[in-house]
Every structure is written in C-alpha cells, then in structure tokens.
C-alpha cells in the first residue's frame, strides 16, 4: 500500500515539525524577558481556546445525518466541574464532578 505509507509519512512530517522546531530553535539562545512573559500566558489562552468550543459547540451524531444535533451535555457537566474545582482546589474532584454529571446526563437521556 504505497499510498497509505506516503499519506502517513506526509502527515507525520507536517505534524512533527511544528511540534519540534520551536523547541529546537528557542532552546539554543536566551529568551528575551518579554517573550518569556508572553509564553507564560500561552497556557491559559490555549486552555480557553480549546475548552470554549468543546463546551459550547459540541454536537452528537454524524455530520450530514438526521442524528446530528447540538449537544449541551458538555456545557451542563462543566458547571459542577468548575464549581468543584473552584471550591476544593483539587484536580481529581474537578474531573470526578464533571464525569459524574456526564454519566448522569447520559443515563437519563438514553
């Protein structure tokens, strides 16, 4: 299967380079203070950028079929997760509250 080999090789290359090059290039020189400060703000920004669509724009079913619909269960389950995490300051409590809420939602809607 030369095509699939070529596909995986190509995908690997274009995925790997953005993962590795910044690390390689930025490690060999001292970083200016402003860049270090900016990089320290990348984490909350990425978490927000990944999380917001995952919670607000979730869908179920396969695109293009009748079963495809908005799914608000992520958003609903996020409420107890945020609340538990804010109150208990605990990583596990956050995930457990969210997964528990999700399990309840699934149990009562299927």
């Amino acid at each position, binding site marked *: 299967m030369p095509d699939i080999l070529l596909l995986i090789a190509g995908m690997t290359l274009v995925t790997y380079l953005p993962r590795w090059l910044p690390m390689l290039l930025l490690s060999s020189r001292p970083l200016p203070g402003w860049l270090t400060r900016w990089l320290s703000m990348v984490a*909350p920004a990425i*978490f927000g950028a990944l999380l917001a669509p995952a919670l607000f724009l979730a869908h179920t079913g396969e695109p293009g079929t009748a079963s495809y619909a908005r799914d608000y269960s992520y958003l609903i389950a996020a409420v107890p997760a945020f609340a538990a995490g804010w109150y208990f300051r605990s990583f596990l409590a956050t995930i457990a509250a969210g997964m528990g809420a999700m399990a309840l939602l699934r149990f009562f809607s299927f």
Partner: protein
Amino acid sequence: MDIRGFCSGLRYAMPIMLGYFPVGFAYGVLAVKAGLSPFWAGMMSFFVYAGSAQFIAVGMLVAGASVPAIVLVTFVVNLRHLLMSAALTPFVRTWGVPAQAWFAFELTDESFAMNLGRFSTRGAFKPETFGMNFFAHITWVTAGVLGAAFGSTGSNLEAFGLDFALAGMFVALLLPWLRTQRGLAAALVAGGLSLALAEGMGGQRLHVLVAAVAGATVACLLPEKAPAKEQDTEHTNA
C-alpha cells in the same frame, strides 16, 4: 532508566487515558470505513498521534481526497502545536536535542496541558514526563487498533461519562489560572475569540492558534499587578 519515576507518570496519564480510549477507538472504527487495515490505522495513531487531524484524514479518504490535500489540511490543523512547543521550551531547554526530539513527538493538546501543569508546580522531571507521555500514547494507539479490529459504528463507549474526561482535565488545569487577573483575561479573550471564529474558519482548528495568540497578547498588555494581593505566583512566574 528510572523505572519508578517512569511509572509515576501513570498517575498523571490517567485522565488522558480515560479520555483517549473512547476517542481513539472511534477513530479506529472510522479508519476501517475509510479502507485502512487495523495495522495501518495503528501506524497512523502511532506516528501522527493527533486526534482531530486523524479524524479529518479518514473523513477525507472516504470522500476520495488526494494524499497532498490530506497532508496540507493536516499541516494547517496541527499548526497550533507551534505555540505549545514554544510555551514548553523554557522548562526543557537543558534536556538536550534527542530527549527534546522524542518529547516533541508525543506533544498533543492533552500532553501539553498536563505537562505544563506538572512542570510549573513540580518541575520538569524527565522520567515522569516520558512515562506519562508513553502511557497516553500507548493508550491512543491501542484504542485505534482495537477500534479498527473489533469496532462497529454501533459501539457506544460514551457511557459512564468517559467523554467528559478530557474536557474535565482542561477545566481542572485552567482553574488555577482563573484566580489570577492575567490568566483570567487570557482565558476569556482566547475562549471568546475561539468561539467566535470556530465555525467561520472552515473547521481546520486554526481558530485555536489565532485565539490563543490574541489571548496571551492581551494578558501581557495588562498592567502588572502588585504581587501582595493574591499568592498564585507559582503560575504567573512560569
């Protein structure tokens, strides 16, 4: 090799593994529909190791897209890793090139999030990091192969709330930042912008990169607050 340190990474990999299994399995199911054997489905999970790109790739295969087209889309979808790689650099700059090269190979949204959280509270402990990454990676590959070998579109692994594991992990990792003014600003700006752009940018996940750059920049432009008020310095001085 520090086996105990390596295995202690399992603790941190757990939420990732819980979340990866159903998603990786679903990818395997779709990969078979796209004509991939379980072997090649697993090879893609091992080498590409990027969920959204793999889903888009098998979808495009079904639609009859060409190899260059799929590779180009994969490149665009995974450009967001540039930013994650750069943000992790201050913690791993003394690791040497081979260790960094392997570390980067296993960089995903989830491993980035968990590693950055660990690095800024516990330090960049190498064996534990590679252990955590290994267990997450092996779960992703195994789930893909199993999905391809035994799965059907009827498989429902969404029960038990497993599908909230990854979202819950991001909530947990984001929360400490929300207690600081800059972290809150970064998350709100990036989250809002990401939402606004998500459906307009062709579903190629570029909105994550654009929104995160904007969020981090806005946060940096905020005036530095006097450090006396709250005590979350371990996060702001990362």
